[in-house]
């Protein structure tokens, strides 16, 4: 009982703090200076139609590197945390049979999902979307495959290669920025040109970087899913 009162008091307290925060808010009619700069010059400096992508990949590329790292760290931790003992590796996950519908649909849908994912990350600089979104979409395909067949074996070797190479490529591109451009993760490589606005091959190396990010995210999430799937063997 006392505990409930305490919880209620906490929530009321936070209600008050958040109410104060809410009262700070006034609807904006103008962009902030920073946003104004991006909106004004983003298209020219970066060449991407999607301003959010320009910010994510270029202006705040260092954050994005951090994001990728977070996923990577989470995936790595889960890999060694949920690692199976040798004798468990060969176990078969016992579950009810999956429905015919799911199995058939997955066979049809998975290639489409993968394709869609690739499309999303490759066009991240033009349309809503990008590496994370595309990568997640790819991972949903993997999820679907696992749902359809709980004992489905994912080729982890490939996942690791994709993950590793795209990660190294991202960092390498960043270092190239130090050597050639104006600083770490300077993806425009001044002089390389930004391409024709609005087309796939525009916005400098954003599509390339975002593809790496997409592949890496897809691989990482798939890796996590794979570990989740396998860890059922230990229960």
């Amino acid at each position, binding site marked *: 009982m006392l505990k409930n009162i*305490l*919880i209620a008091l*906490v929530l009321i*307290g*936070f209600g*008050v*703090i958040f109410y*104060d*925060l809410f009262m*700070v*808010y006034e609807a904006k009619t103008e962009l*902030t*200076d*920073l*946003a104004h*700069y*991006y909106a004004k010059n983003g298209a020219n*400096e970066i060449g991407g139609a999607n301003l959010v992508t320009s910010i994510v990949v*270029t*202006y*705040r*590329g*260092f*954050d994005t*590197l*951090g*994001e990728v*790292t*977070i996923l*990577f*760290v*989470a995936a*790595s*931790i889960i*890999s*060694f*945390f949920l*690692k199976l003992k040798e004798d468990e590796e060969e176990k078969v996950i016992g579950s009810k049979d999956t429905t015919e519908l799911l199995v058939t649909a997955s066979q049809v849908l998975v290639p489409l999902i993968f394709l869609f994912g690739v499309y999303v990350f490759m066009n991240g600089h033009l349309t809503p979307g990008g590496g994370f979104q595309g990568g997640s979409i790819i991972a949903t395909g993997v999820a679907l495959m696992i749902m359809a067949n709980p004992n489905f074996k994912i080729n982890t070797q490939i996942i*690791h*290669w994709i*993950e*590793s*190479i795209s*990660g*190294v490529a*991202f*960092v*390498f591109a*960043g*270092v190239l*920025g*130090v050597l050639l*451009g*104006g*600083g*770490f*993760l*300077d*993806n*425009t490589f001044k002089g390389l040109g930004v391409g024709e606005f609005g087309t796939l091959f525009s916005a400098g190396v954003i599509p390339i970087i975002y593809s790496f990010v997409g592949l890496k995210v897809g691989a990482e999430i798939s890796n996590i899913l794979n570990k989740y799937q396998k860890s059922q063997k230990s229960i």
Partner: protein
Amino acid sequence: MVTPIYIVATGLGVGFAIGILKKFGKNFTGALVLAALAFMTFISFQWFYGLHYGSEVATYVYTAGFKPPFSINLLMGQYESIASLMINAIGLLGGIYMFNSLKARGSDAQVVYLILIMAMNVLVMTRDIFNLFVFLEIVSIAIAGVILLEKSDRSMSAGFKYILASGIISTILLLGIVFAYYLTGTLNIDDFVGISLNTYKGGGLVIFLMMMAAILELKPFPANGWGLDLYEGADPGISAIISGASATASLFVLYKIMAFAGAEWNYYVALIGIITFVGSNFFGIVQENTRRMLGYSSIGQIGLLMVVLGFKDVLGDSTPFILFGLLISHYLAKAGLFWLSGIIKAKDLKEWSVIRKHPYFLFLMGTFVFALIGFPPFPSFFSKFNFVLLLTETGNIAWVIAILAGSMLEAIYLFRWFGYAVKSENSHIEKNKVCLHKSIPIWIMALALYGFSYYTSLSNPWSIAINFIPLAFVALLFVLDFLPVYIKNSLSILGMAYYFYLVYPQLDNMRLIFEVIFIVGGILTLIAGFAYKGTRPGFHAVALLMFAGLTAIIEAKTTLEFFFGWELMTAGSYFLIIRGKRSMTHALSYMMFSIGGAYALLAAFGISNVGQINLDLNQIGHISYLSTWAYALLILGFLTKTASVGLHIWLPGAHGEAESDVSPMVSAILLKAGVFGLVLTLIAMNGSDSQWSNLAYALGWLGAITALSGNLMAVFQEDAKRLLAYSSIGQLGYIVFALAMMTHLGWLTAFTYSINHFMYKAILFLTIGAVVLRVGTHDMYKMGGLIARMPMAFIAVLIGIIALSGVPPLSGFAGKWLFYNAVMEKGWYFQGIIIFFSGGLAFLYLWRLIHTIFLGQLKDNHRNVKDISIWFAIPVYILIGGIMVFSVRPDWVLQPLGNMLSPFFPTGQLNWDHSYAYTTLGYWSGTNVFITIVILFLIVFGILALSTRKAHKLKQFDITYSGEKPFRPETTHVAWNVFAGFYKAVWPATIPLVAKFWDYVTDFFHDGAGFTRRIYSGNGQAYMMHILYFIIITYIVIIGG
């Protein structure tokens, strides 16, 4: 210069690449991770070096080719380079330490570890608040991951609780950040510093949210249960990283946010810090689990650093010195201790005795413990000293009290732990296996600690005068510890003699007297050390450490030097005392009283600086603010060393249980350090405008009561060494009383007693100690009749007790005579009667030393004992010579003493006419008294010798028993329970009220902490509730609801 961005690039690049490279095996990836960490360390080191020596300037690193605020930038400045170097260095060493445990978990774990270290670097360097958030999350997740290196349910639930807590914290931080952006339109920290967020509507709230997150990352008390579980549940290697690197990074985050939070936050940061410091250490005293205790200590230390940060405006230019001094000491020492706890697999504190099976680890542990508590020569000592001084200078005395109280609590549990390690039973525990790669990082930390100690003392203008030569000599002796006793002993004696030769011309007469007691006395007692065989591990280094401290007090010109010496002496004597057989608890209580006393001194030195910083030791003669309090604190501090009643409970055990040649060191010599301190204080007080007469009056009563109770307790002792120990309490009571009179005669008495007590107590302790070595017991009733076997000892004890009891002809009488003159002149009749009565009591126990030990029946098992070792006899007889000289020609000593005291007390001197000393009350000639008594003695002795020539010599067994075999044979000894009747008369006075009082205090703290720490219920939800309540309460306090 390699740009710091390569720290990130290396960490991430190698981390990502390991996905492919893992097929080369875990050893390869492990080595690769170490190589990456080494390169990162190298980068931060070269920046540190460049920035520190001015060949580089603070440099911004831009990303994405745009200038901030449009892109994220990093800063590598001087502080950043230090923090980054600390993080990378501990990362590298920790990586070496944990090489096997990381390997066992595979390349994924190695990668997580690498990225953890990398991300903490970014936390330090980034100048973008959102980027800071991102990397804070990386750190949190990675920490939650590396906890799992230890495969147990405990570490798993600790990790989960940690994720829950950091999840809440990051929610708060994120809200703060986005609202900060909403208000200001920037995310760049430098922009925040430029504009004042507080002036925006709602800016205060936004700052509040960010500050809360930054503070909560530092695990403030009491919203830190998850942090404690983390320390306890994680692999010790990881705990070291959390305590060393993560805390450093988090502190840096707080520092960055404080830069734009506004000055009004300083106070609250300091407040939360001090609550954390005191609270954590309070709970620490009831911990039995090593790692959790270290966790409490870590959190407490970070709290202290928060206090420093909170006072950064007050401390001004000294802030970095104080902050980094404390931080570095904590960083190195705590990492070392956590790593040790990983090798010494002892969960319970008591099991740490196994560390004695690795003597060098014991040395390392001692180094770390003393560094944590802030003993010299470690950087934390200088930092704490400066911190306290600057705080009192600006009038923040309540803060000083809280800081010292917290430090005291921390000292209690760390020294208890150390005591277990040094003393408790260890035969049942198996020795641990030690891998080289685990012990090397610990050694590096310890060596770095010593290196920084030297560097710190050089970099501080106040401490540059400190004389490190004695310390270097101590270190040399430690290194040579493997040599046999006779070499080390000779070396020690030669070293001390040479040092005395160097120092004595620089000293005034008063200091010279004490220096002679300390150093010449030290040499004499060291001679007795030749009686020991083997290597006697550790003895010489710690004994010399004590003497180094003692001479440093004498030579001190500044309060810092004095305090430095005082703490060295305390440390050395602690080690000497704890060497005794059953002295674990006594050494601990000695240490606690000493530290308490030292903190009283520190506070007093601080108060003497109010309004100005003046480290000159003479400054205590010109205290303008709260002067009575300052003198009271100084006196209190010194009384802990003289063991005045109330503060004496450590002495009987400590002196009684110490080794035979250590007892005289700590009794005859060490106690005089307190006297010296009192002398300095009272001289200063006498010369100042302070209203000190009440203080002196109180001190006089205290001395009188001490004299009475010390002697009274001595009467009932069956243990010869404890008897002498209690007698010391009584004798020091006389000295304190005499000093308190604040007259010329009173002080003359005090000095006479100091010199006498040094000589006869050294004689008695050395002789009795030597006897104990022969007969193997302290209990007097187990001895008897030893006069036949040990005539040399008998004569020494006889002379010793004659001198001590103050009867003519020996020098004790000079003291007594002066004493009664002084008392009558002063008019303290009532106290004088108490003192007189105490003197009578002294006969009751002194008689027993001769009667019980040397007269009566020789015990069967002592039939073949030899006389005391010649090495003990030499110093004893030298001292007897000293007593004789003093007795025959007291004027040789008393006249110069009188001249020395005249500047302080110009009236009421002793007038000398050849050997006759006159006061207003009468006269006395030591020489004539001596000659008369000796002639009388010889006459009586001659008559007796002649008249008993034909007497029948009775053999021991020429007696008749009544045929009974006594149930307890010792009860038939004449000395057994000899004072039963007397006891009936005085028993109410012998109830150990003081000991009971201190027991009560201890229990109060122990039970209090034991009860309140239950808020750490171990439940993850409860911990989150603590965090949320912490935020709400702080909100009410700061924003005002």
